[in-house]
């Protein structure tokens, strides 16, 4: 028992001594003020500091994990050999990630039509836009009231794009700045197929389907749907240089 007490006292004494030695040591910064010219890092007086605020915490973790300083080498070839030797795990396939428990969710089928083709919509849309070069076949009437009932878990079909119908599931509904509401859409495999966003009197959409990427723009219930190729075609002539600039 007595021996145990003495041992405990010794431990406490060592801890107190260490604490006091830290307390009475001049702070590194005091040393910094005294110096006439800046020290280089190699000098014995180099200040030991933690990474500054905002420092990479992962770096600290790595450092704590053990000495991993690379050996000194002076050529690129030696460096590459060292890196290979120090990172054997890079050559070993990583172990598969544990399978997470799957959760089954209930989806709700919804029968709605977001938009329908309307050649007449072009002349109305001209009130809200400049210089519309798209032909009438791209124009649609958009039923904004359908957006009022959209919520995560619902499944419905987009109107045909490039002649193909696409079943989509509302993944998330998110409120954004400008009082905008965005619905992210995925397919039956959970792969993103785009989004619909309502911003004031406008609805913007983007759809990634097998026929390409389609864009939707509607204002006050009228607008157009067109793919990337169509929307870029107007640029092509202008962008293709016939001669080098002056």
């Amino acid at each position, binding site marked *: 028992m007595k021996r145990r007490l003495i041992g405990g006292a010794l431990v406490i004494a060592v801890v107190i001594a260490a604490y006091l030695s830290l307390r009475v040591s001049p702070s590194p910064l005091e040393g910094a003020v005294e110096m006439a010219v*800046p*020290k280089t890092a190699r000098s014995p007086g180099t200040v030991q500091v933690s990474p500054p605020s905002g420092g990479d915490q992962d770096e600290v973790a790595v450092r704590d994990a053990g000495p*991993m300083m690379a050996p000194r080498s002076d050529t690129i070839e030696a460096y590459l050999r060292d890196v290979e030797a120090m990172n054997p795990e890079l050559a070993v396939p990583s172990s598969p990630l544990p399978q997470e428990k799957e959760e089954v969710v209930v989806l709700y089928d919804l029968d709605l039509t977001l938009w329908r083709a309307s050649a007449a919509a072009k002349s109305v849309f001209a009130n809200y836009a*400049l210089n519309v070069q798209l032909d009438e076949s791209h124009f649609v009437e958009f039923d904004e009231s359908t957006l009022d009932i959209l919520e995560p878990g619902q499944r419905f079909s987009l109107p045909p794009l490039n002649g193909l119908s696409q079943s989509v599931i509302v993944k998330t509904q998110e409120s954004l700045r400008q009082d905008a509401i965005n619905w992210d859409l995925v397919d039956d495999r*959970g792969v993103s197929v785009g989004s619909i966003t309502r911003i004031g009197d406008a609805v913007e959409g983007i759809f990634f389907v097998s026929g390409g990427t389609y864009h939707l723009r509607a204002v006050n219930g009228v607008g157009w749907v067109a793919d990337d190729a169509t929307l870029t075609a107007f640029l092509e002539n202008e962008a293709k240089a016939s001669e080098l600039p002056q």
Partner: protein
Amino acid sequence: MEIHNIHRNPRWLTGLTLKTLLFGTLISTASTSLAIGITDEKFTDLAGELSADETAVNLAYGQLNEASLASHFNPVGMLLAGNLRCTATWLGSEEDSAYIVTAAHCVYGDNKSEESRYIGERATFRTGDGRILAHGIATTNFAGYTQCSNDIAVVELPLIANPIDSNGQLVPKPVFADQPEFTGFQYQPMTLAGYGYWGTPTLGNLGWGRAFGQGGIPLDFGGCLLNQADSEEAWAFGAPGDSGSASWHWRDGQFIATGIASRWLGWAGRSSLHTRIAPHHQWLKRVYPQINTVTRSRTLTESSPIELGSVERSVKGSVYYNAGDNTLGPRDSQWDYPSGFTYLGVYLTDQSERTSRLVILRAQRLTHCGWGEINNGVYCRGGANKGDLKVWFEHEDNAGLVPGLYQGTFTLEAKGWHDESYQSSIALKANILVEGNRGIEGTVTETKATRTIPYDSTVRGTIYYQAHGSTKSDTGGPVWNGEGGRWSTLDVLVRNRDTKEAHSVKLRASRLASGCMWVTMNNAVSCQGDEQGSYGQLDISYHESDNPDLPDGRYESYFNLKAIGWHTNFHKVLTFRVDVNKGG
């Protein structure tokens, strides 16, 4: 149109998992969309064959699509302006607006050929994952578009959501070139990322989508950069749809936008033309004052460090740093476990006195073992692919400095440890405001003037005032006359708190010559009958009308004036603070 029935179907239980739903892979999405033309050789290299077969195309461009989604391309997105679809780059967001740069030919304007602004086109900007970032009626700024060298526009749109990275963090503002010299970028790899056609010279158009590519700039046609895909290092060129995309260069750990895709020369031409950004940097700052530039990102202030990214990214082996010729600090190298930091000494000009003073800075280099000394070439497990540099100012290291604005440049030399051919001189700026209250006469703000005590009362006879240090006055040496209602105009060097740039602000300085007459500050006149002690105050004020060219922003500095006796050899330096918020 009616609202249709909602069919609840609880039995509809599929193998669909919540995880799949919530975290549907964006990469898969990207693979469905097919922007950059590449050489036949590169296509063959990526796909194993030169073929328009879907498998080969997906193999080649799948890799380029994935590379285009790297985090440094986070600001790159697609712009739908009117019914034109182009590539564009987010410059930054301020309050309720997002600022986006693209090509002038991608957006509508009614006077594009002049420096102008057009309000009225509806536009949407989306980032790489299709996420909507900005939408609404655009305010579009043109630099004066006539040809490739000025095919640049900045679109201001209502902000819907700020861009975030895969960790949910706000994407940092990209860095734009503002240095007039071009030689540093010539023949250096140029990186492209944009949306548009995929294809090769032989195969032609292969599809659509977002892609990454690497080109090279051999020529600058008066501000129009020619990118030619004609080597192993330069194998990509812009194609239709890529218009408006930024082209980028890595330099000293920074990914710098140097061009805007403007034109292409067809599949067989294997070339694209890019508007050089740097000549437009003053215009860019006018339309978006908070733009991040190379100079701004390499300017040190008392509160914002200089941080350069992974300098080792494009170097084989590790990189360490030495002090440059105008900098006190290490000129040797070491190989040791990284710890601590390195002190640097730089001589900066105290603008109040126009005197050079030694300012102490701290600097660190990053390794996989953490931060350490800058001249330490060590790396740690994982390899030499960091080498980030941080330089900062600590007040406690500089307790002896008098309040003032300290300005100057200094350099660090980046050196390859293993690759000795790598050397880069990194020019950095300092714009450090050292604060202090001791001995300050007063502060001039946008709403409040400052007034000294009647210094005449402290001496025999009268006194007058003169500019000192870097401050300039439009009135010269001492005068004695009775011209009242006058003031001197001072030009004072100040620093914009946000952009960190130096500007000159005009202030009015008047001396009270008697109870009813204000004169220029260099006028020592007194009037008979005035009781000594009732005059001689100096009044300094800011007037917005005197500073029409000063951009909106918060400006701070210290400046000195001298009070000098007319009848005696009285001499005193007076220090003032200026803190003006213009447009706030």
